[in-house]
């Protein structure tokens, strides 16, 4: 009879069937599970904060573009806040549209395309030399050639003016002018130097992205083609190029997006010859209180930025299709350069000298020389650093003794430091909620809203903040001119990196260690304090340090939102540039560059992460 019991046993398990829960019961149960832990609550709170800090300012500036602004009621015959197409018409179709929008747009596009082409040519060659050849000093170059990216772009702009400034504008002449050769305007200012500088600054993008694609490339794929009878050039065109295309396109798109928001370089080098790009045009509109037009320009920049990055997202998806191709045993065979070994090394060295050595040396020398390009001993002085009782109208001490520098440094540390700390912590929290919340919609929303500032160039974002917080709204007092607006804008601006770092850290952690603690009997706060935060210490440090570095060298947010009392190092140096205190300005820029560079090194040391991960910050 025991034999008969098999089916009976299975059937026997199905005793009283449990009724299917009604929709209401299922919903109540899910709600109970969702609210059991603070995760969802924290998620809702952060979602609200970011809606206010990110979404609302963007909506506000877009609305500015289509609503009558203060001071225009008479001319437009409408009340403040009424809908109007006047600003759009003015920016796009009026007689001044050419100066306000179209010419800056054309300049932005041509500069960006020039910079992209140049950096692609230099970058791909360097990436190949570094990752696939036996060039001398490959390892050293792999780090050294990335340095331009760690420094603020307008460091190079200042170095350029130090060298090439001509008699077109006042102040101390450039070295070449001082030596008797007057550089023509097209060399000294405008499109040519801006393109060159942006190209050198963003070449590391290509080296990193293209280089890592090359390193992942499986040599067996080449070998298979060779064995089937393909020539070297056929392999290059039919196998390597198609597989490298996503990486190349992606770096192009990223460089374009970066050029779109670049402010410092065109400001320093473009203004003397009235060479305007979109970001400087936006700055001018804001400076001249053309809020409505500023809204139109800012919205246009955002739109271009969003379209560009959507293209990039597509490319990344496409690239992912290729990822599976690389096998585990992928070999990274090196090409022997033979006779070309020395010239190749020379090429890399030249790029390094032009993009790092020369600019920094120029800047450093300029801060210890009274007269430009006069290399006699009596011309050298440390007065600009540590001198006292100098015979100048203002800034009568060396820069290191000037209270303004220290005030700016203090402001920088406080504003950028606080903002980075907050965004680092918020980033980890967002990462936690995104990965853990049972409410999917919340996870998706948080992920997307914190990424939004990435699509918006900093200058447009700053304009959005100005538009929202310049006047009191609801319970919020007017924040313009306060430290608060800078901190808030910085936090929002840094969220893409902070939240991305948090999400990837939480993904890597997985849920096992936390669930194990849960099983052991630990509640939410206990798990946070004993498990999650101690394990995530490293990424928390990166999550604070990387935004800090990008904040230190950031200019576009501050230039719009900072006022003299909230001067930070970057705006302070820009002010010195405006007043033609060349040596002092260069000194401050060197200080910023040093902080950014050593900060990056520190971040790498602390977390053993690769620079490529901080890419785009």
């Amino acid at each position: 009879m025991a034999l008969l019991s098999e089916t009976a046993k299975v059937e026997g398990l199905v005793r009283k069937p449990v009724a299917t829960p009604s929709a209401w019961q299922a919903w109540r149960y899910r709600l109970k599970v969702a609210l059991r832990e603070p995760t969802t609550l924290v998620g809702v709170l952060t979602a609200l904060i970011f809606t206010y800090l990110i979404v609302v300012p963007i909506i506000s500036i877009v609305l500015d573009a289509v609503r009558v602004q203060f001071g225009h009621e008479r001319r437009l015959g409408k009340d403040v806040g009424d809908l109007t197409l006047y600003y759009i018409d003015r920016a796009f179709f009026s007689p001044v549209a050419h100066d306000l929008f179209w010419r800056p747009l054309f300049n932005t596009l041509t500069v960006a395309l020039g910079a992209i082409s140049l950096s692609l040519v230099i970058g791909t060659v360097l990436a190949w030399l570094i990752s696939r050849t036996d060039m001398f000093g490959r390892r050293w170059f792999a780090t050294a050639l990335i340095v331009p990216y760690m420094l603020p772009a307008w460091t190079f702009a200042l170095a350029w003016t130090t060298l090439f400034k001509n008699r077109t504008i006042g102040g101390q002449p450039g070295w070449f002018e001082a030596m008797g050769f007057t550089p023509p305007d097209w060399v000294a200012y405008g499109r040519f130097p801006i393109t060159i500088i942006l190209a050198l600054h963003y070449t590391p993008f290509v080296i990193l992205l293209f280089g890592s694609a090359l390193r992942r490339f499986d040599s067996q794929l080449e070998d298979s083609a060779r064995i089937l009878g393909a020539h070297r050039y056929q392999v290059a065109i039919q196998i390597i190029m198609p597989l490298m295309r996503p990486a190349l396109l992606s770096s192009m798109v990223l460089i374009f997006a970066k050029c779109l928001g670049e402010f410092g370089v065109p400001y320093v080098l473009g203004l003397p010859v009235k060479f305007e790009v979109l970001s400087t045009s936006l700055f001018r509109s804001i400076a001249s209180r053309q809020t409505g037009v500023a809204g139109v320009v800012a919205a246009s920049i955002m739109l271009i930025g969003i379209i560009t990055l959507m293209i990039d997202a597509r490319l990344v998806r496409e690239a992912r299709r290729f990822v599976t191709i690389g096998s585990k045993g992928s070999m990274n065979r090196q090409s022997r350069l033979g006779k070309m070994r020395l010239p190749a090394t020379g090429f890399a060295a030249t790029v390094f000298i032009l993009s790092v050595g020369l600019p920094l040396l120029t800047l450093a020398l300029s801060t210890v020389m009274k007269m430009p390009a006069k290399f006699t001993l009596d011309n050298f002085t440390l007065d600009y650093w540590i001198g006292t009782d100098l015979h100048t109208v203002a800034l009568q001490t060396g820069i290191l003794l000037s209270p303004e520098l220290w005030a700016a440094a203090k402001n920088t540390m406080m504003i950028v430091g606080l903002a980075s700390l907050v965004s680092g912590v918020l980033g980890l929290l967002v990462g936690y909620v995104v990965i853990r919340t049972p409410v999917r919609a919340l996870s998706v929303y948080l992920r997307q809203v914190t990424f939004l500032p990435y699509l918006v160039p900093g200058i447009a974002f700053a304009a959005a903040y100005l538009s929202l917080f310049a006047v009191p709204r609801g319970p919020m007092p007017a924040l313009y001119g306060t430290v608060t607006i800078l901190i808030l804008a910085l936090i929002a601006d840094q969220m893409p990196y902070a939240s991305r770092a948090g999400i990837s850290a939480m993904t890597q952690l997985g849920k096992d260690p936390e669930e194990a603690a849960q099983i052991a009997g630990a509640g939410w706060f206990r798990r946070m304090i004993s498990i999650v935060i101690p394990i995530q210490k490293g990424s928390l440090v990166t999550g604070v340090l990387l935004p800090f570095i990008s904040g230190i060298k950031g200019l576009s947010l501050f230039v719009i939102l900072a006022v003299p009392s909230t001067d930070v190092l970057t705006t302070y140096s820009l002010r010195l540039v405006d007043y033609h205190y060349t040596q002092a300005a260069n000194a401050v820029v060197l200080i910023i560059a040093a902080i950014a560079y050593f900060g990056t090194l520190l971040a790498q040391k602390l977390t053993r992460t690769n620079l490529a991960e901080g890419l785009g910050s």
Partner: protein
Amino acid sequence: MPTINLRGAQKNYGVNSANAVSDLDLEIRDGEFMCLLGPSGCGKTTTLRMIAGLENLSGGEIRVGDRVIDSVADGIFIPPEKREMGLVFQSYALWPHLTIERNTDFGLRLRKLPKAEREARVERVMQALDIAKYRDRYPSQLSGGQQQRVALARMLAVNPGVLLLDEPLSNLDARLRLEMRAELKRLHKEFKTTIVFVTHDQWEAMTLATTIAVMNEGTLQQMGTPDDIYDRPANRFVAEFVGSPPINILTFGKPGASDIADKAETYCAARYPQLRGIGSIGMRPEAMGYAAKIDDVPQGSFSGEMTVTGVLPTGGSWILELRSENHTLFLTTHALPRVDSGDRVFFHVPAEALHVFDADGQRITEADALLRSSTYN
């Protein structure tokens, strides 16, 4: 811990996705060593996580004794940290920032036990699992097998009512796996804990479990002792999943499936006429024999003539591959085969070793009895 009862337990990960677990009834009695066995994606790990409270239900309820700990209809959900269960993760999930001793001590600290007792209990499990010498090391300094022991110790220290193990041996090499199997059996005796163990490895299940629950596609296929599962599979899925080489199946009445299958149908229908035209039979390779001449085939057994197409030594035993026009059968023998590829042989299998399934693949238990008690020769 009192009996754990899952009733109509259901899980789906989205409105439109298929159920990971559907309408599952499961009873885990005190002191049992139960294995959830099934192919990957059958819902066994999900079931384990539902018991632990790490997955919430989409329907049904879970009780411990008379106490409902999870129910959609009643809106009850006891969180994992209050269920007093232990779970060893497949990845071990040791806390990388705590030493082995602190890892083991973690749960006891949470329970705010006096220091002396904590130390005694940590000592006891560390001794039992032979990890006391690593107490000051960090998890990354231990090998996989040692980490496994720490993961077990960490859970045993709090003396949980039930210990849930999620494929705990799958990351170990063959030798360690054997050692840990013995270890688990010993721990089960020593700590007298109820153990629920998830695995896709049938031998692990066979050697360890007192009860095996075979799952497939989110539903329970059969629950029984290891012998039940192997000797009396409730359906074709269980029959084919358990056993290696897998059971040989001959389907009746399939068009074109002549020769051996027809013979099988005739053979069975002669003893149990209802079988004509429906169902299939299964023959375990280990239950089969072979003979070179028809005269050597035992009386009353089911047999057929086939060609040897392969002799595969497996170390101590051999697998013969036999082919006819439409079928390939495997049989296992422990004596050195005196046949070679191309030879014609007669396989044979005694009537009581045949497993008979109906058209839906369910075991026909009445057929068992009839085939077995048959006096027909």
